[in-house]
């Protein structure tokens, strides 16, 4: 790949995936500042590579997951990831807002906490699919077989909804 074509491909990938990758990392970690750092670092690593991987979208997710894992090792000591979320609630972008703002905040926090109750693998699966990643990309990034992704998505979804309803209740 010539330097020019790499730069063009890099630019296109950045435009296409940076926001989506951020939302994925943010969904997994709940920490906006950490997520921004990780996304930047992913693209810095790609730029230093000076060659596009076979599956660039999956490659970015793999690098992001490795950086997340490193960060979470540090966070286990400081318990920062989950507590950061509550301060992030007012940033809630295009989320539908019920009439009662307090109720809306409670719902969002329940979603966050339900995600936190899942295994990291289940959280990654749900959030990658939610960001539009294909089964093959998910399989590559998480080192799964493509044929197992559907089954794992069903199970992760069930665990997530169960956790959410336990936290938020079903009567509201």
């Amino acid at each position, binding site marked *: 790949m010539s330097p020019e074509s790499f730069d063009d491909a890099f630019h296109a990938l950045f435009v296409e995936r940076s926001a989506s990758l951020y939302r994925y990392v943010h969904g997994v970690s709940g920490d906006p500042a950490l997520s921004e750092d990780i*996304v930047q670092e992913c*693209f810095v690593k790609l730029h230093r590579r000076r060659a596009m991987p076979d599956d660039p979208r999956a490659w970015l997710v793999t690098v992001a997951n490795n950086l997340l894992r490193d960060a979470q090792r540090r966070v286990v000591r400081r318990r920062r990831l989950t507590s950061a979320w509550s301060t992030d609630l007012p940033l809630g972008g295009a989320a539908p807002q019920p009439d009662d703002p307090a109720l809306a905040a409670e719902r969002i926090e329940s979603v966050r906490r339900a995600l936190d109750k899942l295994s990291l693998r289940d959280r990654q699966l749900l959030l990658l699919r939610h960001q539009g990643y294909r*089964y093959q990309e998910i399989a590559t990034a998480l080192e799964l077989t493509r044929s197992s992704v559907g089954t794992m*998505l069903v199970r992760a979804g069930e665990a997530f909804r169960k956790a959410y309803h336990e936290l938020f209740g079903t009567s509201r």
Partner: protein
Amino acid sequence: MSSSAHPADGDLRALLDGELPPAQRVEVEQHARTCAACRARVAALESAAQETAALLALLPTAAPDLRIETIVSRARAPRLRWGVIAAALALVVASVAGATVGRPYVRALVVHIRAVVHPESSAPPAPSPARGGQVGVAFIPGPQADISFDAPQSSGAVYVSLADTAKLVIDPSAAVTYRVHPGGVVVHNVGSSASYDIVVPRNALHVRILVAGRVLFEKAGSRVTAPAPAEPTGRYAFDVR
């Protein structure tokens, strides 16, 4: 799957997501046409997937304004190594001691640091015109760091990049001598036509570049004043005049 066996939930979910391989999709669809239980299961899985998606859509969607220029600039900046940190710290000590020990000692150390800061393997992929393999200097800037050129040059340019590093690096294209002091560096460039790659730590509080006492470039906090706007890569380029 035989025609009578019910497809697994994972296959039905893959069918809903459009992710089943074509041959398998035909088989599952044929089965579902004649199996009310599987049609009901598909409907339930679809409803569950929609509920999951609706809940996840409550999460914040706003992404920060990530700038590709910042990323490219970071990717091209020399990488920070523990050896560099140790060497830079050593230079700070040496620069203070240099006043009493004398310049030759400091310059010898600078030669060593230059080798640490720019090993061959860490050369950026697209070297700028200033990189010439001459002896440079690196140090951790204090609250204020002045890079003072003794004299204007008839040719030669300064290329300033901001980077997420701890050290300030000056890398000339031709040999010049320096005097390092606690407030920065004096570049003895009289008669030189060298160009200079200068990497300024993004978190440096106050850095100035002066030519014959005249301030050409200044970074105060995040505010940068330069003779010309930054290039698309984020680099500032100007003459040593």
